[in-house]
């Protein structure tokens, strides 16, 4: 296969840019059109989300993994190399977005002509703004009936301080004016500021795992050049590799002889695991170390969930499925865990709820695995005051991953809970209800600002655990879908946390103990008791289901005893059927867990612990 010669594209002819937008505003469609116009892909009627390679991405219409594509475009007699770096559109992946942006000099900010500025438009704008990138506002979907580009242009001017005449109005679906976007990219976005004479400095902004070729790292060169045979080092792991192949993505891999400063492409260098090519890492030549690019951090999990096989016999299958799935997703945190009710499993840390859902969906689609997901919990912390415990853990501040680990109040000087700063953009008629919802979630208002005559942007500081279960759903529901939500990590705050036990006729059920904020103890306790009541079969005596904090009972449900439980008819034809059913019940009895004198079926715990959203 003939290799491309990248030396034909001097730095001045290069433009590195990204497309950022709120979910569903047309980012990926615009990317499709740009690929078509530049001849990178053939123009057919069926180019849809070309850059979204994962099945789950295509189904949910979202971009999960960042991809890139190099486009060639001739404008005014000059051959330009335009590197498009597609970015994940969801808040969970904001770290990936920021790394992709650091490889760019400008962005196309896409805004839906009807919906206007939404929460992630704002969030992504700020990411680009802080990175000091050129911003080209593009108003999309002007072909739709309710489009109001003028209104949106005014919003952009008001909120982002960008003059109205800089906006380009397009329809990515139809292709209207898309060529003008390309021209603006060339005009408004500066070429990269770097030198091929400098030592090699490459940013890793994504990586994928290929079974035959190993890890393929997406890189952007900030200096120097790179080719096959070069010996390179990772600034983060300090490991050394030899480059096997370099190339560009169009969007499939196309090997080249070399890659030069300012260019974007991929590299294969004998790395075996994606953890060896982490997003944000810097690569340099052996014996020529450089200052690593700023902003690198290990992926931080925001949401934890327990994941268990439906049956313990599936444990090994699930284990290997997880291993293979995480090959390509280094941002999932994996810890082994054990539950009294559900057996051996894992506690996984995800970047967010969407990340968790996508992961679960990929498990089902790509590995055919069905799992039990227990309610997500967040990483609480405790500042220990007991010398004994400090010695045991080896540090003063510990992360509490499960209720069994919850240190007693007496040994702790302070409990901490993770918080996030949430941005809500909503039409004004829902402000009242939303404020009530936020207050209900122990959030503190930090800012409130009118974007235009109709809409408000609210900023609240939320405890993370209050939004991980169903905040987004509740918000969407009470605003008829119009409110949008985005959030970012905001550190830890002191919190009045307690461990709540669930009791059956006075005996504690270990599997259901939870860590909860004192303010929410009653509501959570009541909820768990109600769910448990529905999950346990009636027995010959009354069962008291209670939620307790220490010795104090805070909520209670009663499961009344059976007064009649005998099948009415039992003659010739019924007998065989009856015996089958009875024997099955007898078998089930053997599998039941006995807590005191109460018999609890194994799936009772699952039903209580399971995430209850049926999306």
């Amino acid at each position, binding site marked *: 296969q003939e290799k491309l010669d990248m030396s034909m594209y001097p730095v001045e002819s290069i433009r590195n840019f990204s497309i950022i937008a709120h979910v569903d505003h047309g980012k990926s469609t615009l990317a499709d059109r740009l690929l078509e116009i530049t001849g990178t892909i053939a123009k057919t009627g069926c180019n849809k989300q070309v850059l979204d390679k994962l099945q789950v991405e295509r189904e949910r219409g979202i971009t999960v993994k960042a991809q890139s594509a190099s486009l060639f475009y001739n404008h005014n007699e000059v051959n330009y190399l335009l590197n498009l770096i597609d970015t994940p559109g969801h808040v969970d992946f904001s770290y990936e977005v920021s790394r992709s942006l650091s490889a760019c000099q400008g962005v196309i900010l896409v805004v839906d002509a009807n919906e206007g500025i939404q929460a992630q438009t704002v969030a992504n704008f700020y990411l680009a703004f802080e990175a000091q990138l050129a911003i080209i506002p593009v108003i999309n979907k002007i072909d739709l009936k309710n489009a109001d580009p003028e209104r949106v242009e005014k919003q952009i001017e008001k909120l982002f301080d960008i003059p109205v005449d800089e906006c380009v109005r397009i329809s990515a679906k139809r292709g209207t004016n898309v060529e003008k976007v390309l021209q603006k990219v060339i005009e408004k976005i500066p070429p990269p500021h770097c030198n091929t004479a400098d030592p090699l400095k490459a940013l890793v902004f994504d990586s994928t795992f290929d079974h035959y070729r190993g890890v393929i790292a997406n890189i952007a060169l900030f200096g120097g050049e790179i080719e096959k045979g070069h010996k390179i080092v990772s600034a983060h792991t300090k490991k050394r590799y030899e480059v096997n192949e370099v190339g560009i993505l169009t969007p499939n891999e196309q090997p080249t002889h070399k890659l030069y400063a300012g260019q974007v492409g991929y590299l294969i260098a004998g790395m075996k695991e994606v953890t060896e090519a982490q997003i944000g890492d810097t690569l340099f030549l052996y014996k020529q170390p450089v200052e690593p690019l700023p902003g690198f951090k290990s992926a931080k999990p925001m949401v934890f969930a327990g994941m268990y096989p439906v049956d313990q016999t599936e444990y090994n299958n699930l284990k290997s499925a997880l291993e293979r799935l995480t090959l390509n997703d280094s941002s999932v945190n994996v810890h082994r865990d054990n539950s009294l009710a559900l057996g051996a499993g894992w506690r996984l840390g995800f970047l967010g709820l969407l990340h968790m859902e996508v992961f679960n969906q990929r498990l089902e689609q790509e590995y055919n695995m069905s799992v039990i997901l227990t309610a997500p919990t967040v990483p609480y912390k405790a500042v220990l005051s007991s010398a004994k415990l400090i010695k045991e853990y080896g540090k003063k501040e510990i992360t509490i991953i499960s209720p069994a680990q919850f240190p007693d109040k007496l040994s702790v000087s302070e409990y901490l809970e993770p918080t996030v700063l949430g941005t809500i953009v909503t039409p004004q008629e829902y402000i009242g209800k939303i404020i009530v919802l936020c207050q209900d979630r122990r959030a503190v208002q930090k800012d409130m600002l009118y974007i235009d005559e109709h809409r408000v942007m609210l900023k609240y500081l939320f405890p993370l655990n209050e939004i991980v279960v169903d905040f987004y759903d509740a918000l969407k529901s009470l605003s008829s879908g119009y409110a949008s939500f985005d959030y970012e990590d905001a550190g830890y705050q002191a919190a009045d946390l307690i461990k709540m036990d669930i009791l059956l006729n006075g005996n504690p059920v270990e599997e259901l103990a939870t860590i909860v904020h004192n303010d929410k103890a009653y509501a959570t306790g009541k909820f768990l008791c109600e769910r448990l009541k529905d999950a346990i079969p009636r027995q010959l005596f009354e069962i008291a289901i209670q939620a307790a904090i220490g010795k104090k009972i805070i909520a209670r449900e009663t499961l009344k005893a059976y007064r009649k439980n*005998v099948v009415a008819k039992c003659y010739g*034809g019924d007998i065989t059927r009856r015996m089958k059913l009875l024997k099955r019940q007898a078998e089930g*009895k*053997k599998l039941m867990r006995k807590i005191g004198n109460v018999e609890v079926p194994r799936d009772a715990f699952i039903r209580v612990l399971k995430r209850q959203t049926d999306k």
Partner: protein
Amino acid sequence: WPYCRKRCSYCNFNKYVVPAVDEAAVRACLVREAQTLLRLSRVRSITSVFFGGGTPSLASPGTIAAVLEAVAGAAHLPADAEVTLEVNPSSASTPRLAGFRAAGVNRLSIGVQSLDDAELRLLGREHTAAEAREAVEAARRLFPGRTSIDLLFGLPGQSRSAWARGLEAALGLCDDHVSLYQLTLERGTVLAAQVQGGSLPTPAQDLLADMYHTACDALVAAGFRHYEVSNFARKGALSTHNLSYWRAEQYIGVGPGAHGRFVPWGEGSCSREARVQTLEPDAWMREVQSRGHGTRRRVVLSPLEQLEEVLALGLRTDEGITQERWGRFSPQLSLEAVFGVPGEAQELQQQGWLVLDGSGLRCSREGLALLDSLLPALLCQLQR
């Protein structure tokens, strides 16, 4: 007799509603299968015969007579053997009933279900309350002391007082045997779909328990013996046939979907088998015509499985399982050895649900209503 004129809203039995029945063919097959199975079982004497279905009263007395003749021909059918026919009030005119009596029937079981017209409509029954009354009165004249009525309680939307009224009316009308059933909403029935869909209310558990207990008390007060979960008899009018199910005796099922429990000595076997005949009438007839019987499935019951049936069925009656009967099925392990040792049975006894003594093992009055909560534990203990 698997045929009915229409399907009631709560029924999920093996019943068929067809425009025309080739009675002669069905009759011939019933006769043939009865003969084949009787010979196979090498049974010498018959204690009872039960004509069920479907709606057996839709068959002609001639068919009944033919079957009884066939039975008498293949084994000894004593003159006083109980011969029951299930009857639907809409096919129970006096002449018709007299015809059945002449054919050899000596006991009737009438599907009254309810004496309230609105309830009967809800149940999809073919008859009115007045017709039901007439049928019972006609039956009592022809079969005095040998008429049983079926009653249902716990209908969706039925109030306590409505049931009390119904009970009173039934007690005024009935003979010496009552079968009282709590309505069970079976999946796939019209009634279940209505309740599921929300157009009818689900009866509350407590209300059902109350209705049952009220009925038991009323019947006992009127002189009935509560001899099985759902069956009441006075003046000794117990159903011999049904008792043989609960006492795990031998019985032969003839006809589409019929069930049997017997030892097919005629094939050289010496183990008790659970047998069921082909469900679908046309298929059943073809099988009977080609090989003499339409047995769809036969499973040998292991000694443990037989004991499990003895246990689960015997506890439904007030006499429970006698030491003697248990001994027949379990010569090595007595009731005491299984249930008299520390374990589930003892706990249940202490709680007052069970009684184990010299006579045998049985439920207490309170325990009977909760039998299905007791059985899984007892089965576990038996299996161990």
